[in-house]
């Protein structure tokens, strides 16, 4: 490899570091992403310049096809469906890494005796973990896209099959390191696919974002190992950066949900399902029409809105913003309380509200606003449930026990906008719904907000 190529790769590595740095601050995020994109493009162009590659027309065609697919997918996807899009992109990346390692193993077959054991081990790692990442992400995608049930799927003997699969993969990897035979690589890929499926099946829908983040870190490490196999420093650095920051981010997210990563991944296997029973209770609740709620809101001094995924599903962010504007004009102080895991991923709700052009200053993070609920006249919960469920504080057996929640129960009045009495994503009943301070407004969020808006306007 010429020195100038190595220097270009060094520059690209620095750009990736700057990209991650930029992405972690609100003002620099977009620039950071663009720096990363530019570095990636340069990195891919370099081999066409310094190497005499074969099959260039086919390679370029494949790049165009993949890029077009990526751009179309990225542009068409609804912001509510973004988590599964990220999962899908991550999965194909992991799959690509596994295929690259398989090919490298194939190319090395003639000189396999001269290949060091550590290179073979890195190859085995890339093939196996890349396959896990691929199939795991596909299952994640299917769960979030509701192509399959989002509840944990556990069958008797799953822990045994999973354990056996894992053990077999380790044994195969050891065999692969001994001789580098092609069949061991292929078998490892197949086993990896199986383990990936079994890894994600028992995880409940609410925990899937953590899994996406974890698989993202896996793919990063896969790419790093692939970089070692190909003796390419850029791949090693880029993959390691993503692997390390992805692992750290996974821990941050799990902490925001008050869970441990091990509990999320293996909770269902141990019998303590990550989802509750999901029964619909027939206890009495107090419901009201839009006019009654309009009076509550219209004459309140301070209102806090707790938006949840239901708001996004109903595409009601825009109507909600209109309602908040009207209330603001009437002199009511309105803030949005954003739970760290509101929506389907940490920060997802901020993206959705930003799309509806809600001013950034009105979005308050949980720790900043939790003290204000006591002085709040009305809390309006739109399509959220688990993030205000007091069971997180009071019921040690609940799946969400220990998750920090918004203290909506401390407000004077609570209004829930819900489609039905069905429990939230975590599948557990919310005591707050039966609180005497609580009023329920049933119906589709967009529909109800529209009626509420015209009722407030006519006050």
């Amino acid at each position: 490899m010429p020195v100038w190529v190595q220097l270009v790769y060094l520059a690209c590595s620095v750009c990736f570091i700057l990209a991650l740095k930029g992405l972690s601050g609100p003002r620099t995020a977009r620039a950071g992403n663009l720096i990363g994109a530019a570095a990636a493009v340069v990195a891919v162009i370099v081999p066409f310049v310094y190497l005499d590659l074969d099959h260039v027309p086919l390679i370029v065609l494949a790049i165009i096809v993949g890029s077009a697919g990526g751009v179309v997918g990225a542009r068409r996807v609804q912001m509510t469906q973004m988590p599964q899009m990220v999962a899908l992109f991550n999965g194909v990346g992991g799959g690509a890494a596994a295929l690259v390692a398989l090919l490298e193993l194939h190319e090395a077959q003639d000189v396999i005796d001269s290949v060091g054991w550590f290179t073979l081990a890195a190859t085995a790692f890339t093939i196996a973990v890349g396959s896990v990442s691929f199939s795991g992400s596909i299952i994640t995608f299917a769960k979030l896209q509701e192509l399959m049930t989002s509840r944990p799927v556990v069958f008797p003997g799953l822990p045994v099959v999973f354990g056996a699969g894992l053990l077999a993969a380790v044994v195969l990897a050891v065999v692969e390191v001994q001789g580098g035979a092609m069949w061991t690589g292929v078998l490892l890929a197949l086993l990896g696919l199986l383990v990936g499926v079994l890894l994600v099946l028992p995880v409940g829908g609410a925990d899937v974002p953590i899994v996406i983040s974890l698989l993202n870190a896996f793919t990063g490490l896969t790419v790093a190992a692939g970089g070692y196999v190909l003796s390419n420093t850029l791949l090693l650095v880029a993959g390691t950066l993503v692997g390390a920051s992805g692992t750290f981010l996974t821990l941050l997210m799990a902490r925001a949900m008050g869970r441990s990563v091990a509990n999320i991944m293996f909770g269902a296997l141990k019998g303590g399902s990550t989802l509750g029973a999901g029964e619909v209770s027939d206890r009495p609740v107090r419901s009201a029409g839009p006019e009654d709620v309009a009076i509550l809101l219209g004459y309140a001094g301070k209102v806090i809105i707790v938006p949840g995924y239901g708001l996004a599903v109903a595409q009601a962010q825009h109507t909600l913003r209109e309602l908040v504007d009207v209330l603001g004009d009437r002199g009511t102080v309105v803030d949005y309380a954003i739970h760290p895991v509101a929506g389907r991923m940490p920060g997802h709700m901020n993206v959705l509200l930003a799309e509806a052009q809600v001013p950034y200053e009105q979005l308050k993070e949980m720790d900043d606003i939790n003290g204000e609920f006591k002085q709040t006249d009305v809390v309006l919960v739109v399509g959220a449930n688990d993030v205000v469920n007091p069971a997180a504080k009071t019921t040690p057996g609940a799946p969400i026990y220990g998750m920090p929640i918004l203290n909506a129960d401390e407000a004077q009045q609570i209004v829930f906008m819900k489609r039905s009495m069905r429990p939230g994503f975590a599948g557990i009943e919310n005591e707050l719904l039966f609180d005497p301070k609580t009023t329920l407004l049933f119906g589709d969020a967009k529909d109800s907000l529209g009626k509420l808006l015209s009722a407030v306007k006519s006050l």
Partner: protein
Amino acid sequence: MSEAVVWLTIFVLSVFVGIEVISKVSSTLHTPLMSGANAIHGVILLGAVLVTGSTDNTLALVVGLVAIVLAAVNMVGGFVVTDRMLQMFTRKKPATASREEGKA
């Protein structure tokens, strides 16, 4: 210094840099950050191009082209979807300004 140790050094230092650069991220940006990091590992496209461009076996060529398509989806799609998310964070400033003008 043996070559393996050089690689190990790069790896270990990258781990620390990777954790350090994102340690102060606010939960607001978790999703775009994950998506951006996801796009960065799409640079495996480079590896796919290197391997595919040096093979003379038809089956390997086909597998390599599949790898290139997958990696390109990861890389290009990843950066585009991240930019779309972040666009929404930056667009709200003029929106706030115009609404305040409307009130005044």
